[in-house]
């Protein structure tokens, strides 16, 4: 579903490339998490997958990006938008301002796709349900808290049911239970609807619990790719600023050589099994 070959990209007026020689394939329906320190190129890769790079940001691009059968650099944005949904990092930038209620806001994009009314209502309700916004459907988008606005940005994109969903830290402002619900909902969308998902997140516990694959970037380069447990316990990647859960940190410092380090709670309980009371 996603095929990137030797992608190198430089923003206008900058020297250092934001992405360097990235090659990557993601099959249809896979739920991938993208991790890495600040300035690793995570947001830029999200833009490249959804066409904002190079169509909106311009700059210098080499290599190829194919997403949902479209050659991204040579397909115009309106055409890409119907196949690839991008949820921006900052939800405050994403609300249209053209609608009076949360429900209408979620329907806005669908109306523009010219779908029949029944279908629109169905998809809107499903997206509200998945993001826990059903009770707030009649509220003004501007009467939402920061975290609720982020849920709205997410619902608006999910409602469009894109083939590929790209999310740049969609749960950054969500409460912990909401975060877990969104991760679980994304896992369901990838499994049941075969939606291909690329999600940027620093919340490694939930990345490891729900994603099938973890891709790590640092300094614009791909530095890790594989099973969540392998990537997220790789000492070189911890060193590169990817971070680690408290479970991994505690296990590493407990000094039990030889055992694989845990990333999630369940793995940690297994790791410390002999220390139960």
């Amino acid at each position, binding site marked *: 579903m996603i095929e990137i070959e030797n992608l190198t990209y430089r923003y206008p007026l900058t020297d250092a490339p934001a992405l360097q020689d990235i090659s990557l394939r993601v099959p249809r329906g896979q739920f991938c998490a993208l991790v890495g320190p*600040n300035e690793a190129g995570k947001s830029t890769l999200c833009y490249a997958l959804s066409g904002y790079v190079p169509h909106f940001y311009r700059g210098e691009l080499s290599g190829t990006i194919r997403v949902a059968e479209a050659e991204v650099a040579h397909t115009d944005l309106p055409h890409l938008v119907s196949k690839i949904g991008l949820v921006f990092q900052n939800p405050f930038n994403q609300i249209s301002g053209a609608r009076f209620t949360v429900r209408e806001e979620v329907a806005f994009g669908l109306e523009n796709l010219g779908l029949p009314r029944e279908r629109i209502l169905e998809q809107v309700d499903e997206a509200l349900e998945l993001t826990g916004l059903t009770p707030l459907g009649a509220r003004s988008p501007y009467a939402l808290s920061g975290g609720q606005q982020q849920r709205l940005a997410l619902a608006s994109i999910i409602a469009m049911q894109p083939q590929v969903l790209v999310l740049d830290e969609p749960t950054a402002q969500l409460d912990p239970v909401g975060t877990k619900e969104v991760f679980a909902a994304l896992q369901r969308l990838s499994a049941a609807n075969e939606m291909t998902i690329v999600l940027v997140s620093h919340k490694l*516990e939930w990345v490891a619990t729900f994603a099938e694959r973890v891709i790590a970037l640092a300094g614009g380069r791909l530095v890790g790719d594989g099973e969540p447990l392998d990537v997220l316990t790789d000492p070189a990647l911890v060193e590169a600023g990817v971070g680690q859960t*408290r479970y991994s940190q505690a296990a590493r410092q407990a000094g039990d050589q030889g055992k694989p380090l845990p990333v999630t709670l369940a793995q940690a309980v297994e790791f410390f099994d002999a220390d139960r009371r």
Partner: protein
Amino acid sequence: MQIAVEQVSFSYPGGVEALRGVSLTIEAGEAVAIVGENGAGKTTLARHLNGLLKPTSGRVLVGDWDTAEQSIAQMSRRVGLVFQNPDDQLFERTVRAEVTFGPRNLGWQPAEVREAVDEALARVGLSEAADTHPYDLHLAQRKLVALAATLAMHTPVVLLDEPTTGQDAVSVERIGTIVDRLHAEGRTVIAISHDLDFCAEHFERAVVMAEGRVLADGPTRQVFTRGEVLAHAAVEAPQLIRLATALGWEAAPLTVEEFLARLRELRRSR
């Protein structure tokens, strides 16, 4: 400088009732984390502490000032608020100009202003980016610029709204160090955060909010082990407390060091 929130209720013009009778006293020099579900009223409460919002009923005292009687400019001498969204806060052309704006408005000498700005930039690790346009920085770095702009004003109270969202491991650690240092300097630090691991490591007191009310308030260790209260507020205990609970320990470790200390104790006694 004591902060007293007395029976504060607040409704937004659209009718959303964001605070319902909140009472809270924060002593000078305390480090307090406010946690709770989206829409609980945390940000609304923060905006009451620096006078951006005035209570519909009840009152907020910061030292001897009633926030209802003070201008926002006046309040900003006592309470520095770092916004959740840095773009609500940043408007200058360079990082240095941005961080200089606040202290210059306090009427300090130019040399004092420069010193405060340099020191604040160093604390957040952005000394090298002083001449950059804030919008040429990533969102995570713009958040650090907003933090520096507040630190430079040397307010006795520093309020951080979601300081760690979107930050990588290194920056979260840096923000933790900044909090610890403010605390050591005797300043009051209040943070709103969904990152309970971060709260456990850097804040001695925790307040849990839901539906515009305070559900729990007390020492962090005590509050973060009250599973049913946390669940009601859509938050989860920090990772190490969840792990200790799952292992059947009675201890509630707040940091990796505490966890390891308990682990060694257990292993010695076996």
